[in-house]
């Protein structure tokens, strides 16, 4: 363990920790756009600049390893002036259309502008124009809102191992793009969407469905494979409009295409809405009492005539533990047979 001093506070961190990690450990806020604890340090946004005693110029906290006895200043007039200027420069090449932006309320750039009270901008000039629409069905990519933090590029390479996107061109013309600027064609895990600090990357399914206000967030578990990923359903007007996942979960906030974008079946018009009984070869809608009475009556009849082992039940790996418990209890205690199984073999 090493000890350093940040803003006059003694902080103890393990060897190899960065100054940024040490500051977070001590609950000291340093603004960042390009940092994600789950990714390698990158040093692109320059917002985490701090002053370290003995160093001639401010350095990025995210890429500077903490050293024994280091004295760090995370905020003073000079540092805040630099940070403010960085944000101003970013905003000078940004559409600033927060009133129609999907990300409003959950946007780091917007937060920073608010924090620094940036209404006017000292800088003006040419702005990047990028009119190309990406026709992939999952992810809306608006390169005019991109701040080139590189999180999407890095998550795609470091975490997902796909490298579907990278930086293209140089300087002012730099954008993040799939190879040859074609439409995105990847695993569509949406990891890039989840780490994007601005509105440059958003899920197409959520567009126009509602912003942060009035959204109910419910933590639950993904209904697909057995990984058991923790997901948060964003609900607006009894409809799931978006799925996210928190980084402090067993899946570290990462999801796959099904977990992140595969929720549209929930309110699909094909959903069964009323009990059905086959009458003269055709299904007819009936009320619950009629359906349940009929099922119980037929099962009792078959049980009396052929014995309980003439009845079998298949339970569901999609249903909850509680429902599976009740299902086998029903087959064993109410019907009287051990003929109960589920799809573990398929």
């Amino acid at each position, binding site marked *: 363990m090493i000890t350093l001093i940040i803003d006059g506070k003694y902080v103890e961190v393990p060897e190899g920790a960065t100054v940024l990690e040490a500051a977070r450990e001590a609950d000291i806020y340093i603004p960042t756009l390009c940092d994600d604890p789950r990714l390698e340090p990158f040093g692109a946004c320059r917002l985490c600049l701090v002053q370290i005693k003995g160093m001639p110029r401010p350095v990025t906290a995210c890429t500077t390893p903490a050293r024994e006895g280091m004295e760090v200043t995370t905020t003073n007039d000079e540092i805040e002036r630099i940070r403010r200027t960085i944000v101003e420069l970013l905003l000078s090449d940004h559409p600033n259309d927060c009133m129609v932006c999907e990300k409003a309320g959950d946007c780091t750039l917007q937060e920073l502008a608010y924090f620094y009270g940036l209404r006017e901008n000292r800088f003006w000039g040419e702005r990047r124009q990028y009119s190309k629409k990406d026709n992939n069905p999952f992810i809306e990519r608006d390169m005019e809102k991109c701040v080139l933090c590189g999180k999407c590029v890095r998550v795609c390479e470091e975490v997902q191992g796909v490298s579907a996107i990278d930086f293209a061109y140089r300087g002012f013309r730099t954008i993040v793009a799939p190879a040859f600027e074609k439409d995105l064609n990847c695993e569509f895990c949406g990891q890039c969407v989840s780490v994007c600090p601005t509105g440059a990357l958003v899920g197409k399914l959520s567009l126009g469905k509602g912003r942060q206000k009035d959204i109910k967030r419910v933590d639950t578990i993904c209904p697909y494979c057995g990984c058991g*990923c923790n997901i948060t359903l964003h609900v607006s007007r009894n409809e799931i409009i978006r799925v996210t996942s928190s980084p402090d979960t067993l899946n570290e906030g990462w999801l796959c295409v099904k977990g992140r974008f595969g929720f549209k079946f929930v309110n699909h018009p094909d959903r069964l809405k009323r009990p059905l009984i086959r009458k003269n070869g055709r299904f007819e809608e009936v009320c619950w009492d009629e359906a349940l009475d009929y099922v119980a009556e037929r099962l009792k009849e078959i049980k009396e005539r052929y014995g309980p082992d003439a009845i079998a039940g298949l339970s569901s790996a999609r249903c909850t533990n509680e429902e599976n418990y009740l299902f086998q209890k029903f087959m064993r205690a109410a019907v009287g047979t051990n003929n109960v199984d589920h799809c573990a073999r398929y």
Partner: protein
Amino acid sequence: MTNSIQEIEDNDLIFVIGSNTKENHPIVALRMIKAVRRGARLIVADPRRVPLVRFAHLWLQHRPGTDVALLNSMMHVILKEELYDKEFIVMMTEGFNEEFRTNLEEYPPEVGEKITGVPKEKIVQAARMYATAEKAGIYYTMGITQHSHGSDNVFSIANLALMTGNLGKASAGVNPLRGQNNVQGSTDMGCSPNMYPGYQRVDIPAVREKFERLWGVRLSDRIGLTASEMTFEAEAGRLKAMYIMGENPVLSDPDVGHTVKALKALDFLVVQDIFMTETAELADVVLPGACFAEKDGTFTNTERRVQRVRRAVSPPGEAREDSWIIAELSKRMGYEMTYNTIEEVFQEIGMAWPAMAGMTYSRLERGGLQWPCPTTDHPGTRYLFKGGFPRGKARFTVVKYRPPAEEPDEEYPFVLTTGRMLFQYHTGTMTRRVPPIEVVAGEPYVEIHPDDALALGIKEGQKVKVVSRRGEVVVRARVTSRPDRGVVFIPFHYREAAANVLTSSLNLDPLCKIPELKVASVRLEPIE
């Protein structure tokens, strides 16, 4: 899993066999990639060049159904080169005897190569890599189990882990990855014909009496039918009625024709689901259930972690939670199920099975708990068999290689293997109703090696008739070197070209009755 997902990061060696992890357990695969980035070695054994192969140090492309030969051959090398863990074997196991060792004698790498098609050098290399690693984890899925000798495959995996002492410690173990959100939970909860909740056998009188007291009713001592046996009994007319909740056996079970015939032969079929599935279409009564987002409860994931499921939206129309439907039916059958809240059911599970007795909803609030968790102050169990095995010593099993039940011949020269792909899920009931998924993966296909395609005159995207002894489907060809020559792959998600029209329901594993969905013989005919 005997280990936890998080422990994968600390594996020194990861041995993935019969699992397309990157597509079918994407988040587990991310941990594997993370481990590889940290320096772990990765061996992938799969008949297809699955996406995880990109990250592997060694890929063993064995022929479908030859896993036992591959594993025995690896163990042969480990035995010959004395790379096994002598201390672990003496202290923790039994059955590492003359018979076991003599059996391995029959599988030198040359024989292994002949049966599996994997070059003998690679078999030797894999054996050394696995046996010399400090913490080696094996990960497998249906590529191991869905065979007429699936149990043998699993025994072989257990032998390999036991021989090298890779069990009962952190980041080293035997890890089946479960394919469905709560398939672990369904098994835990006793949805099995021979077991009550918590793997307690129905044919042991003391166990039965315990459940008779808990449920206040006399219970049957006869072991019930497995899902595959139900189909045969229904077809034979001995099974008269079925109640199917949230399953779609018509598409997921082998030999669709056989399944449909069996379900039609029933006097009475009740299906409870969220959509009109292929199975529900055959029902006498269809009951509308609620989906995951519309109810409270728990799911248990592949690492035995019980986690809270929470209601976010209300079910459509008059659809009701499945628990309500079951309880209402039970009452009408003369057996009252009275619970005020769903948590009361959870509490009863704890009474039935000590391994979950220490869990409450409030303890599950954040992050869940891994069973066994016997008391309310128990932190849950990250990995199993720490310090010993429930049966005392773990046992080696002598396993001989048996070829798949159906092998290619002149009439059906290709091996068909089936499985899932990244975008779709199982029988597609859910994912096929997600429009963007249908845009990128809306059509069924057959993967065929370029050499085979050339020989048959099949071009990329061309329609092909795939014929087996059970039936035929028409799909587009995807010409790719993903499968080896002589092997073709069809995903089973698509009702319009259901892969399970082609598979066989007759070739069951004798022990656990799993069907051989991973190997069937087919021929391909290009359609002009």
